[in-house]
């Protein structure tokens, strides 16, 4: 019992949606309550009851519903889910920013949240002053901040600018300072919400290192992120939230699979393309990428197949088809080109299926899409050019690398290389 750090039982949070939620004016409230009272009197007089409830439509929205789980001391727990799944609401309840509408949660130990780094910084104050202010807001005592002051500055690498107002800081410095203060809070339970989405790679690595260090100290960490790689590296157990409900609680690997599956179900466009009806000329009717994991998700190094349905309405001699794989930034990284143009020759209008197999597809992890070209070689006319269709993702799942984590955007292509080391005779 004693090693439970957080226990959440049937917690629910209800918000009222609609325009009345914000900025109510006093007049509105007064007139409404008078109107309600008048209505009640009238309906009482004419003997009609119960019409009142229907008259005031209140739209409620459950941001969280019936969520229960327990976290042991020293456990690192990941929370994933699409936008609006209730992740932030859950963290807000645990950090006591807002109260649940239902249920009960118990938190044992000092809790700190890195909900948004730099909250409470004042631009006019210097770095030194902001360390004190921010530390105080996060719940530190003055003596405690003084003790850790040097450590914080060292971590943030802002020694030279410590007496400059933070409004003159670069965004990187600002961020480093803010994270440094929060990271030195030494809480027993740390809530981390998407703080690693910012900053350069070196800083992200540093943050991850700090979080790892905190975790090794036997403290409990709640880690919310859309960065699935970070989740899989840091956590063993994961909660998957969807529309306010806890739909999975278990091993991170399984949770990630569930999440990806859910993601795919939601966006049908992932890994496939369907042409709209009624295109009068020769065109791409459909496209599918046969990826090695679930739909639209491919594992590095596995076989991949690109499948296209070409609808030929006006048969020509010299149809030509090619496609590029492009990164999510729009950079074309590889070109696949059908050399044999006779292959798609047809005498009567029909749909032709072409497949392109790549036995070992080694694009580095990231999000990609494809760009297709359908053209007539004679006259060099492009019949159709589609960009950004069939989005798909490449992951490094199952390709472990000792000591170094896979960083997003580190490269585009990763070859499976063989290394050889030969010792030469010692130089005399």
């Amino acid at each position, binding site marked *: 019992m004693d090693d439970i750090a957080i226990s959440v039982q049937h917690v629910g949070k209800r918000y009222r949606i609609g325009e009345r939620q914000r900025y109510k004016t006093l007049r509105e409230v007064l007139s409404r309550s008078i109107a309600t009272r008048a209505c009640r009197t009238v309906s009482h007089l004419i003997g009609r009851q119960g019409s009142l409830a229907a008259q005031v439509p209140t739209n409620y929205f459950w941001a969280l519903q019936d969520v229960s789980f327990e976290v042991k001391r020293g456990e690192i727990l990941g929370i994933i889910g699409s936008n609006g799944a209730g992740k932030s609401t859950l963290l807000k309840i645990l950090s006591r920013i807002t*109260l649940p509408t*239902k249920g*009960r*949660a118990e938190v*044992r*130990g000092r*809790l700190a949240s890195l909900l948004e780094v730099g909250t409470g910084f004042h631009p006019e104050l210097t770095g030194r002053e902001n360390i004190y*202010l921010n530390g105080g807001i*996060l719940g530190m005592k003055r003596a405690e901040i003084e003790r850790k002051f040097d450590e914080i500055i060292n971590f943030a690498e802002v020694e030279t600018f410590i007496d400059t107002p933070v409004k003159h800081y670069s965004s990187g410095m600002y961020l480093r300072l803010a994270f440094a203060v929060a990271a030195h809070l030494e809480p*027993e339970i740390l809530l981390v919400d998407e703080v690693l989405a910012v900053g350069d790679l070196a800083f992200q690595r540093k943050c991850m290192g700090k979080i790892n260090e905190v975790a090794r100290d036997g403290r409990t960490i709640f880690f919310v992120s859309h960065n699935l790689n970070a989740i899989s590296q840091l956590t063993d157990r994961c909660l998957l939230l969807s529309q306010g409900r806890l739909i999975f609680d278990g091993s991170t690997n399984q949770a990630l699979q569930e999440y990806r599956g859910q993601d795919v179900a939601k966006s049908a466009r992932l890994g496939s393309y369907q042409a709209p009806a009624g295109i009068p000329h020769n065109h791409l009717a459909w496209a599918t990428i046969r990826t090695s994991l679930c739909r639209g998700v491919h594992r590095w190094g596995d076989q991949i197949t690109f499948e296209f349905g070409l609808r030929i309405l006006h048969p020509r001699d010299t149809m030509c088809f090619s496609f590029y794989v492009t990164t999510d930034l729009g950079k074309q990284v590889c070109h696949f080109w059908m050399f044999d143009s006779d292959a798609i020759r047809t005498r009567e209008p029909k749909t032709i299926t072409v497949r392109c197999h790549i036995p070992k597809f080694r694009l580095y992890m990231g999000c990609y899409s494809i760009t297709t070209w359908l053209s007539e070689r004679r006259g060099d006319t492009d019949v159709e050019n589609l960009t950004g269709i069939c989005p798909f993702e490449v992951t490094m799942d199952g390709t472990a690398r000792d000591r170094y984590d896979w960083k997003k955007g580190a490269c585009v292509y990763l070859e499976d290389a063989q290394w050889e080391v030969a010792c030469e005779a010692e130089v005399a």
Partner: protein
Amino acid sequence: MSRPLLQPAIESAKIVIEPQGGWVPFHFHELWEYRDLVYFFVWRDIKVRYKQTIIGGAWAVLQPFLTMVVFSIIFGYLAQLPADGVPYPILTFTALLPWQLFAHALMQSSSSLVTHRQLITKIYFPRLVIPMAAVLAGLLDFGIGFMVLLAMCFYYGIVPGVGMLAIPLFLLLTLATALAVGLWLAALNVQYRDIQSTLPFLTQFWLFITPVAYSSSLVPERWRALLGLNPMAGVVEGFRWALLGHSDNMGSLLPISVLIVAGLLLGGLIYFRRVEATFADVV
């Protein structure tokens, strides 16, 4: 012991998070734990207020001083208001100092929760810290103004008596009044932004019903108890009594004022506690 022992700001004990309704108990202990934060907020407000200004802290003197000059010309010289035997500038400046402390504290604390929206929706701490710090931040200005007042007394040859010792008490009453009203308005302002628009008018109106530009002896005898319903009237007369040694009106005003403030403050605290939990959702 590898790690330095920490004095945790939030008690290490179990924290229960559940829906609340009805009466919510106070956690003065927790507020005490966060006393450093009050200090940090006050210190930040003071630091920031005069950053990027040319004359800096002189603003603290200039505002009440210029008001006093205007009042002296209009009410003292042109309207020839009676000043109970003290120079009119002194009469009004003695009242202006606590008044400006009050007005500033009221303005700041009433809008404090809304201006700290960023913090309220991101981090937990007892919300009471915010309006409290907003009220206290005006004390420095008051201190500076008080030095000027003493200098003026010296200039006019007035020697404050033993009554001076009571000034901290009246100061406390000023802050309590500002906090009491500020708590109500701050909490209401989170939900009803009407408060923000009402504030300038409210303070202006309040200034007129407070004997700042005039002496309370101007008010007919039988209405004077009514004047006491305004706690600031008690404060202002208290200051005049403490510094200038006269004002026999204080005795009738002060008890009512103190009672009113105590009631307002208690009610404000209760109301604040009740709605505190919804701030993050509504603000």
